[in-house]
């Protein structure tokens, strides 16, 4: 028998994402995890610039729209000043991995006790589909019109792997929202990340692969399939580090 699930009360109004976008699913997963962990009234969101900032328009909670890329620094201070609040920086790949790579990496490097959720849709969505640091090799965008040439632009960055390999972080994983099994798995990753933060043992990051049908110029179903067949080959799904909670 199918069960209907209530929309988490943190989500107070319809969000304004494009049809077929994965942001709405990711935000709902975050809200569900917070509710299930009893933290929905104990949450502060520093949010990025770009499509991720639309979380600010749809969630009823303490939230701060940070300057482009700076959420890692803002979150650092919020968590250190309010250690008992759950702090989740919600950012896109352009925000966290390009303009904010310094702040994102440094927060992981210091093992700050907050959680970062990074929506990776392999392009700058809000500005209309330009190449980002996660754009796939040969992917066409508005600034790589013949396809991304990695000999000139460098290779796409894999941040959760970097955090897991190089820093003493608590939890690093990559999920996807392109089908139901992966949505469920991604939810478990987000939950573990928040639990890691609650344990105080270390920084936690979950990257979420997300379809961008508008800028990929695909139908929503085609975009989901594109993630399964192409995006996941470059960005493997799974958990890269899971420190034991004390």
């Amino acid at each position, binding site marked *: 028998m199918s069960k209907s699930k209530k929309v988490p009360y943190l989500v107070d109004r319809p969000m304004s994402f494009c049809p077929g976008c994965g942001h709405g699913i990711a935000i709902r997963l975050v809200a569900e995890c917070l509710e299930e962990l009893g933290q929905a009234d104990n949450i502060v969101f520093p949010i990025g610039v770009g499509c991720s900032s*639309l979380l600010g328009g749809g969630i*009823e*909670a*303490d939230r*701060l729209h940070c300057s482009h890329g700076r959420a*890692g620094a*803002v979150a650092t*201070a919020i968590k250190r*000043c309010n250690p008992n609040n759950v702090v989740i920086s919600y950012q896109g790949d352009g925000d966290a991995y390009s303009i904010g790579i*310094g702040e994102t990496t440094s927060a992981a490097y210091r093992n700050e006790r907050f959680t970062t959720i990074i929506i990776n849709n392999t392009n700058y969505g809000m500005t209309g589909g330009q190449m980002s640091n996660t754009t796939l090799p040969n992917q066409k965008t508005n600034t790589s019109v013949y396809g991304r040439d990695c000999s000139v632009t460098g290779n796409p960055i894999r941040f959760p792997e970097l955090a897991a390999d190089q820093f003493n972080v608590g939890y690093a994983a990559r999920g996807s929202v392109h089908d139901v099994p992966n949505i469920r798995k991604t939810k478990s990753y987000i939950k573990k990340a928040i639990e890691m933060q609650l344990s105080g043992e270390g920084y936690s990051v979950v990257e979420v692969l997300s379809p961008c049908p508008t800028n990929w110029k695909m139908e929503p179903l085609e975009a989901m399939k594109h993630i399964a067949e192409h995006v996941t080959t470059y960005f493997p799904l799974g958990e890269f580090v899971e420190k034991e909670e004390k």
Partner: protein
Amino acid sequence: MADMMKGNVAIAEAAIRAGARLYAGYPITPSTEIMEYMSWRMAEVDGVFVQAESEIAGINMIIGGAACGVRAITASSGPGISLKQEGMTTLSDEELPAVVVNMVRYGNGIGTLYSAQCDYHRETRGGGNGDYRCIVLCPSSVQEATELMVLAFDLAEKYRMVSVFMSEGALGQMMEPCELPEMRELPRYPWGFDGKYTNKKVGIFDRNSRDEAVLLNEKYNAVKENEQRWESIDVEDADYVLVAYGLPGRASIGAAKELRAEGYKVGMIRVITAWPFPEKAFQEVNPNVKGFITIEANATGQLIDDVALTALRTIDKKVQCYCRPHVYGIPSVKAIKQDFIDVVNGNMKEVY
């Protein structure tokens, strides 16, 4: 009995006593002792200290702390403050109070290590994007620096603005007798994040920038009306008035007093709030004054613009406005007296 204290140390301790409980920043000469002091002192008062990876991250940490209602401070010098402009316009946009210390050093680009006043225009106009102002406080002694630090936090809180503490490299490095302010135990600002959404912030997409702009302008006008600060001597009957701030301001007082003793009718205005500019000081000046002379530690003359504009607004006739930019360092009393003699003898051309 006042203790001898180094400027940067006195500034840092005064900030702690004024209630600062978050410091985040990046080292840069000649402000670094402030950060070094905070790195151990903040822990003693259960505050937060973060050595940030950059000036940009540092000011964004200040934003995070201020958003939680914590009194927050960062310090730097010219080039570092350039990087902080993004955060300062964001603080102003969110109407979050904070104190930003600029121990000014001379030069464009990465500049030099010489003490100077070359950042006047940037600090008084707001160097980031948009339409905002910061309160700018300029001490001329270590003692005054500690007093203005308390005021910087109080004004930032009262108006929910950024207070810029604009001093000079030399003031941070010199030692003087200094009575520190009393330690204050203050609660956090009442409107900060608590995770419960107790204090509703206007959502980023629900804002009405046109209405906000009107309110912001009203706030800035209130600051202009209520918060002008200056020190002046002998301006009521002066033929010439020296205008300066910071350490050149202190030297100019000495020069004005000596010139007066030598029979010249010279007055002096020492600017304490570079913004709001002390227009009221000019309303007390002799209506028949012949000229204003700014003494500055920069290359192009910056204070002169505010002086000329203010003279135009406060004095019924056109008054000549002269400027002697000494580039960097602190001009001596002797040098400032010579500047005055150059004006009187017609050897200095007016700027306005």
